[in-house]
């Protein structure tokens, strides 16, 4: 079999970036959730908030570690897989990646140590500040990376001299046309992924009879957050789509499976896009709906794939988009139903119907599926370009022999699959373990359980 090195390099990069994004998607927003929990504990002195904070801090530490190591891998794979990319756009991509490392990566990584293990060694205020800096750092990371990614989708603010890109305006590059939408869409995706993770793990604890006093608090915060954010995300997603229609119409044409330019295009609920025959098989759709959503006119015109000299592969975009939307819809149903039903039962999850808890637990990793599907749509949707319309992916690939890429790819894939399995199983183990086993609690806690403290008091009186 003939191995295509460019395809292998793409699969390898995709495997790594897919593995990587799972963890920042959680840690970006979990940092803010931890800050919230810590703040509630300091404000209310209600002990379960501290229990919740401690549990999710451990999850954060694990998630963060996986994000760091896979992020380091990515910083190398830019060079090993796409050496031509940096040679051509180094003047633009270099400073953006550099500022990510300088303003975000160091900040989060350094204060993480203080945040995780520094309690008792620094004041409450400094500790809260460290927690804030970690959350802020992860968000800044996302900012710089999404600037670069968005610029690759909608490049502006450059001039080309002798085949090399030079900056004409940093403001244009940083606030490039697709950046605000993509950044908002990704941050919301992160918060939703985290909300469903927190809610799902809490529901799992309830189902397994392992809930503690902190479980209803975490569940309530997470379900409320999800219920509030999901409609916002649907709105932002729609705006992002309209922005893409304007700048990358071929991506939208592939998402909607529109081969020929047509007015009043149907919204295809299901179809099998057939790229050899250039048509859809077994299409089921709502007439005129795609035109209406994208142009806000029933008879709006959508440009078809056949009009573009180059367009992305249709199948992955067509299905990827539908998977993402289906997940979003499920999120809407589950979070709204959950919020309504739990609120009516005074946020006591053990009184909620079991099917609801099963549903919430089943959605634990729904954010991962939606996020990865969405990223596949936007990244595969840029092909065959690495910088939309300007540089082809194949032109910047490395000369590394295919067998070398194949061997290392196998190594990475095995590692990633095992680590995802380990992550989920350890998460489950931690969720089912009794909380605060080492809790030094000066009042209450273990002392009260053993009955030593009341006895002492009596003796004193």
């Amino acid at each position, binding site marked *: 079999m003939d191995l295509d090195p460019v395809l292998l390099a793409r699969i390898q990069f995709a495997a790594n970036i897919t593995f990587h994004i799972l963890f920042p998607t959680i840690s970006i927003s979990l940092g803010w959730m931890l800050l919230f929990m810590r703040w509630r504990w300091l404000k209310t002195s209600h002990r379960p908030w501290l229990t919740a904070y401690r549990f999710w801090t451990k999850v954060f530490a694990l998630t963060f570690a996986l994000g760091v190591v896979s992020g380091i891998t990515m910083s190398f794979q830019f060079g090993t897989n796409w050496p031509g990319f940096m040679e051509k756009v180094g003047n633009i991509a*270099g400073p953006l990646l550099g*500022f990510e490392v300088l303003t975000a990566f160091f900040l989060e990584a350094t*204060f993480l140590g203080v945040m995780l*293990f520094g309690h008792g060694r620094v004041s409450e205020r400094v500790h809260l500040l460290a927690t804030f800096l970690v959350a802020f750092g992860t968000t800044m990371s996302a900012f710089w990376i999404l600037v670069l990614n968005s610029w690759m989708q909608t490049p502006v603010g450059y001039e080309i001299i002798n085949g090399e890109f030079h900056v004409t305006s940093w403001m244009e590059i940083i606030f490039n046309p697709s950046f605000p939408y993509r950044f908002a869409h990704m941050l919301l995706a992160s918060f939703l992924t985290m909300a469903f993770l927190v809610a799902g793990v809490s529901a799992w604890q309830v189902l397994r009879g392992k809930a503690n006093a902190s479980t209803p608090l975490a569940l309530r915060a997470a379900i409320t957050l999800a219920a509030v954010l999901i409609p916002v995300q649907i709105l932002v997603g729609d705006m992002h789509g309209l922005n893409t229609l304007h700048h990358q119409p071929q991506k939208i044409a592939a998402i909607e499976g529109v081969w020929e330019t047509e007015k009043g295009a149907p919204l295809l609920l299901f179809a099998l896009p057939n790229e050899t025959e250039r048509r859809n098989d077994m299409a089921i759709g709502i007439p005129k709906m795609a035109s209406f959503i994208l142009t806000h006119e029933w008879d709006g015109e959508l440009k078809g794939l056949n009009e573009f000299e180059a367009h992305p592969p249709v199948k992955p975009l067509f299905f990827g988009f539908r998977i993402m939307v289906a997940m979003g819809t499920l999120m809407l149903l589950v979070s709204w139903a959950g919020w309504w039903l739990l609120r009516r039962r005074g946020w006591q999850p053990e009184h909620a119907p079991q099917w609801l808890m099963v549903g919430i637990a089943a959605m634990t990793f729904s954010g991962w599926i939606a996020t990865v599907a969405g990223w596949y749509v936007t990244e595969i949707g840029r092909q065959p370009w690495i910088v939309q319309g300007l540089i082809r992916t194949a032109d910047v690939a490395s000369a590394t022999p295919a067998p070398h890429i194949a061997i290392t790819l196998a*190594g990475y894939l095995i590692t990633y699959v095992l*680590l995802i399995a380990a992550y989920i*199983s350890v998460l489950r183990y931690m969720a089912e373990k009794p909380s605060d086993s080492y809790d030094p609690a000066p009042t209450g806690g273990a002392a009260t359980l053993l009955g030593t403290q009341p006895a002492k008091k009596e003796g004193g009186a």
Partner: protein
Amino acid sequence: MSWAEILPVIFMGLMGLAMFLYVVLDGFDLGVGMLLHRADDGQKDMMIASIGPFWDANETWLVLGVGILLIAFPKAHGVVMTALYLPIALMLLGLILRGVAFDFRVKAQDRHKPLWNFIFFAGSTVTSVAQGWMLGRFITGFADGGAYDLFALAIAIALPCAYVLMGATWLVLKTEGDLQSRAAHWGRLALIPVVVGMGLISLATPWVSDTVSARWFSLPQFIGLLPIPFATFACFVALWWTLNGKRALGTLCWLPFILTVGIFLMGGLGLAYSLYPFVVMDRITIWQAASSTAALNLILAGCAITVPAILAYTFFAHRVFWGKATELRYG
């Protein structure tokens, strides 16, 4: 020299600084990783506790070093990354495994702990060996041939030993009691291969590269450079003296670590002198590989603000966990 010509030199200095800090900082935690299997279970936890709050930030220096290569010398970045494709992949797998094992070992079921300990040890070892191999290949400008491979192999053994020395002296600094005296013993064991390795490299580097030979063994440079080998020798002797007996176990516990840093510093200076002004030995100079002056100016301004801040809060984090390591607790 015009500003446009000075800029790449500044960035080579910054890259050198980032790489030096990486080798020192991640060096001690990689070293602790490679020593892990020699300790009993309670000591293992204490060893991990001594590096726990720092390892994330330590690895970030590698990202910065490679980042500067990528940002400031994009035309060399591709050449280096392509030439080192396989060892980089190996190193990354090692880094991934040790990074996650660190967290998994305390969060997974107790019966899985030995497995994660082993993964931490193995990942640390693979990472160090791969880095040594890459350093060896890099020094010779990726030249092909049996002698060059042998040279790279020698460094692939010497660098892990140097990391073990770093890890052992770190433990002398951060721990007490039985673990501390065992760490001093491990340090003595690692010292001999490091001396031999550094000696071999110093002799072999001029032999495998005519450029290096010309830069060192001509007058008057040779005399001007003598402080480097002399200082290295002095550090080695002082290190041997402090690690012997009980000298390093009391108030002098910081000395072996500082001396080891001194040895690394001298090695780094010697290496930088050998390489300059090449970013790929004998093939690409820093001026040929550099980004546009506009891009470099911008990054330099960024570095001028952020690098001192990073150094300051790195110091702050070490201040928070100053003194002997204690059991790690999530607060």
